[in-house]
């Protein structure tokens, strides 16, 4: 039996068995859960290599599952993060109700993501895409908070995206008569001009929703913050990357027909840029860590979209590298927030402070994650951002560079807020009993945080698979090897590492940091929570007077005009209008039988009158 299909069968059977076992006391369900995540992953690493394929026919459609280099790379993200999140989840989700549902959906999500990565035909791509959507939807509503608003919003947007994609798929089918992705990309050049524009736009909507691109991102903060944190790390880390993956494999082939600097590419890149800025600004304004990270995810995905949109080899490299990095550090951070929430019961900065002594390991993981997120060397985020700047400058998008630079600078603000709000500051009595998170929760965090460090130091570990994937997509490495496109890298043995000069700079900064820490250690002064500067604001009585309150007030005031109009507002208005309209249409059914009879007669008469027009007779 083919290993690929076996992996899916084990996933599916494991999901169902875990679901069925969820009511049995004892550790059976946990064991089953971990087994059904880990066994297929192990099988994937041992039994499958790039190039394996599996073909079959179902319902008149040809299905082709094949492992491409790029798919393998993303599968690494999915499986790695998936296993970590699964281990984390076992501990984090203890004593929750409806555990079977959680495990079921968790396994199905991982399965469907792998399925998406394996699919080389659009039908199975869409099938797995939809399975992923509904399993993650069930996770979003799992905790039962705001289901009718957040959950439905997530699903509506997902459905719009999925159906836009389905429309595109069906259009491709009608034009080529085939559902193969390769065939689609090959014959793309022969499509009529309007199809050449419409199809990528529809695909873009489909993928843009999942990767939270700007006008379509409104579901993301709610969905990310409402699903259990054990899943959110996977949700934000891996699941949203599926949108990126889709963009890369589908759009890359198509966009390659647009020359560089074509308006279509620029539009995508700018959408990414706007996403980055908007996401960052909104993240700064949040008081809830989950929301903050959610908006930050939106912003990070914006960078990636910029890279994909620009579409030069270097930009693609940057985007994919950032995708991997984002999976790692955002996974870490969501896990950390989950740990804090589990230990303290809240994820609000204004309530929790000074956890550095209580949860040092969590702090360490968060610190690494934050550094990576902010793009400070030597952790991985820096490499990606650098390459992005380089590619932008190299392709003359100077305005976009400014935008990205602005947003990545502003990102420091929320990074700081996150770190400061949770871990630093005065220890309050309320949180005295707080202990470090269970070891099963800490280990995945630390491993993922270590991953950011590893990839920051040895980016070649990822760059090699990425370049293989890009070659397979048809990107020729124009200037020798891929890493030679950037001035950042150096070859050291058979490893690609950063230039030594960077390490020198890092060492200097690190020295000053340590020096300052040691020097100021004695001067540390413990202040009360109330002893804060409110920037000349007079606090009102009912206000929570934690220092984190109105943390970046002046800055937020400066950018207020930018944030005044939430796109959400328009969507809600649109939805309300639609509902009102439909409220009107349902009044057709007046409840009076006589009116219904009149409709019938009018129906006949209209068609009798129009019979010449309608039937041509």
């Amino acid at each position: 039996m083919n290993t690929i299909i076996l992996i899916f069968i084990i996933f599916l059977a494991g999901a169902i068995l875990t679901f069925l076992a969820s009511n049995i006391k004892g550790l059976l369900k946990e064991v089953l859960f971990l087994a059904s995540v880990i066994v297929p992953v192990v099988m994937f690493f041992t039994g499958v290599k790039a190039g394996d394929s599996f073909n079959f026919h179902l319902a008149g459609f040809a299905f082709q599952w094949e492992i491409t280099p790029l798919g393998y790379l993303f599968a690494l993200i999915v499986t790695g993060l998936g296993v970590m999140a699964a281990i984390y989840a076992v501990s984090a989700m203890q004593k929750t109700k409806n555990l079977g549902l959680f495990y079921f959906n968790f396994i199905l999500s991982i399965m469907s993501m792998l399925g998406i990565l394996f699919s080389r035909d659009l039908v199975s791509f869409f099938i797995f895409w939809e399975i992923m959507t509904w399993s993650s939807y069930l996770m979003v509503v799992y905790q039962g908070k705001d289901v009718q608003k957040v959950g439905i919003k997530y699903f509506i947007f997902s459905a719009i995206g999925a159906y836009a994609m389905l429309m595109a798929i069906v259009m491709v089918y009608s034009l080529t008569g085939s559902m193969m992705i390769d065939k689609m990309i090959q014959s793309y050049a022969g499509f009529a001009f309007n199809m050449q524009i419409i199809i990528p736009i529809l695909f873009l909507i489909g993928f843009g929703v999942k990767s939270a691109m700007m006008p379509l991102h409104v579901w993301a903060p709610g969905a990310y913050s409402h699903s259990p944190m054990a899943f959110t790390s996977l949700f934000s880390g891996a699941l949203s990357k599926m949108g990126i993956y889709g963009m890369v494999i589908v759009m890359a082939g198509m966009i390659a027909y647009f020359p560089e600097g074509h308006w279509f590419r620029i539009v995508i890149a700018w959408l990414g840029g706007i996403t980055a800025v908007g996401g960052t600004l909104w993240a700064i304004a949040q008081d809830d860590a989950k929301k903050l990270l959610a908006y930050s995810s939106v912003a990070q995905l914006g960078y990636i979209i910029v890279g994909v949109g620009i579409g030069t080899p270097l930009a693609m490299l940057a985007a994919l590298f950032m995708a991997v990095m984002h999976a790692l550090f955002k996974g870490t951070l969501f896990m950390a927030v989950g740990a804090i929430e589990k230990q303290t019961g809240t994820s609000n900065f204004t309530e929790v402070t000074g956890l550095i002594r209580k949860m040092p390991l969590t702090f360490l993981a968060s610190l690494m994650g934050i550094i990576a997120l902010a793009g400070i060397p030597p952790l991985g985020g820096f490499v990606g951002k650098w390459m992005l700047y380089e590619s932008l400058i190299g392709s003359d998008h100077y305005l976009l560079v400014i935008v990205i630079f602005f947003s990545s600078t502003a990102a420091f603000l929320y990074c700081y807020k996150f770190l400061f709000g949770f871990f630093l500051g005065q220890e309050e009595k309320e949180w005295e009993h707080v202990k470090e998170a269970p070891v099963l929760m800490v280990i995945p965090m630390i491993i993922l945080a270590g991953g950011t460090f590893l990839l920051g130091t040895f980016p070649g570990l990822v760059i090699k698979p990425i370049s293989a994937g890009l070659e397979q997509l048809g990107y020729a490495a124009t200037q020798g090897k891929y890493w030679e496109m950037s001035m950042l890298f150096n070859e050291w043995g058979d490893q690609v590492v950063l230039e030594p000069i960077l390490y020198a700079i890092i060492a200097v900064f690190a020295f000053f940091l340590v020096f300052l820490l040691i020097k100021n250690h004695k001067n540390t002064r413990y202040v009360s929570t109330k002893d804060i500067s409110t920037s000349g604001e007079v606090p009102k009585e009912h206000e929570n007077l934690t220092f984190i309150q109105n943390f970046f007030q002046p800055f937020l005031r400066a950018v207020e005009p930018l944030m005044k109009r939430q796109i959400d507002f328009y969507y809600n208005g649109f939805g309300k209008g639609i509902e009102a309209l439909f409220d009107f249409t349902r009044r057709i059914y007046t409840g009076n039988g006589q009116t219904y009879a009149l409709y019938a007669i009018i129906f006949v008469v209209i068609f009798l009158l129009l019979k010449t027009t309608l039937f041509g007779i």
Partner: protein
Amino acid sequence: MVGSPVLLIAVPLLAAFVIPLIGMIWKELVRIVPGLVLAYMLVLSVTLLVEVNQNGTIVETIAGWKAPWGINLVYSNLTGLLATIITTLGFLVWMFSYRFKRNVDFEPAKKYFIFLMMLVAGATGIVITGDIFNQFVFIEITGISAYALTAFYTGRNSAEAAFKYLMMGSLASSFLLIAIAIIYSQLGTLNMAEIASKMHTMDPVFKVIALIFFITGIGIEAEIFPLNGWAPDAYTEAPGPIGAAFAGVVVKAGIYAVIRMVFTLFDIPAAHDFLITIGLITLIVAESTALRQEKLKRMLAYSSIGQMGLVLVAFGIGTHAGVFAALFLMLNHAVIKPLLFFSGSYLVFNSKEKRISEVNGLGKFMPYTAGLFALGSFAIVGLPPFAGFWSKLSVLTAAADEGLLLVIALVLIVSVIEIVYYFRVVNRIFFQEYNKEESVVPHKPRFNAIIAMTVLAILILVIGFYPDAVTGMLHSASSDLLDKSGYIDNVLQVGQSLIR
């Protein structure tokens, strides 16, 4: 050899006459005998379908008169498939409602099962008959059973719903009779095959008028948009399983009658576009109306209407792929919608108003039923890997083959609306807190009901994971529908050699 197609009609009729007598012997028999009859019909239709698949269409004559003169029954791949769907559902509905309303006095309970059996027999008759007036008679049988079943509960507004249904039904039969009169006055025959073979000689003006009257007459059963005012009321007020029977049995028969007219009897090519148009209008109006419903069954009813609109659109495409997609949709709808009605009727079992807001948090108390409802919702909005996805995909690909991009776009937009209202309910059931004042008192489903629901759920999963289990059957059925000359030959010539 289990029997021949005529027994599909004759046996339930015989049973209907026998039941009042044996009911005097032992009261329980009035529940059991219809079940046995429906089971027999199910077995018979399946074996016949298998036989038809191997040996070709069975044409059965009545009273020994050959095809154009006597009434004949045509059991082909298409009609056999639909008859199988109908009898299967009939049996499941019987099983679901076997213990139903035990506390009701003897009289109505007896009648409930007779009506149910006759509803199924009538719908089977509509599908397998080869004579338009005979079809009219069967439509009336189905209709009267349906009126009676709608008015079954005395406590509610069911009489109102039944009266509306009856009013529309009477108008429908009047239109049908007018159409039959036109056809007979022009062609001098009532046999479908002969009408089809003679249709080219008819004056186009009369042809179109007759077609319009036909479609109006049957459209009332098939729930085409302006003619479906009765449907939501009837679905809402009839007992829960009967809603399933309406969605799975009556409507299917109505749709069959419409397509038989358009595809076989009348040679008007533009009628296909006409089907697409009214199908789309039906789809859009019904789904948008369903969005704002407050009652569960009413929402399901509008959704059912919308699905029928989609079926008409798919038939209107007119190609093999389109017909295949439409039949697939019908099959899936016949599997999924009854599941929704079954589980939905248990969810709001103890409620007086049957409001959607009353199902909050019921997933905790009746997880199996609620889970099946969720499964049905997932399947009907077309999420893979459940049954509904494949049919939706085949509709879209069929439309794409013909380049009907606007249709595809509209269908997809409407699908989003569908998702919204179904998921609202699923959310309420599972992820909102149970509220003592607002929510319904949970009601444990009975064993027989659980079996009926489980069978449907298994069918959904089987079709979802392995659609090839049914596609072969659907393909041969769609070739059968499109093969007009084959139909005529079968009935008029080959049929005569098949007289047994």
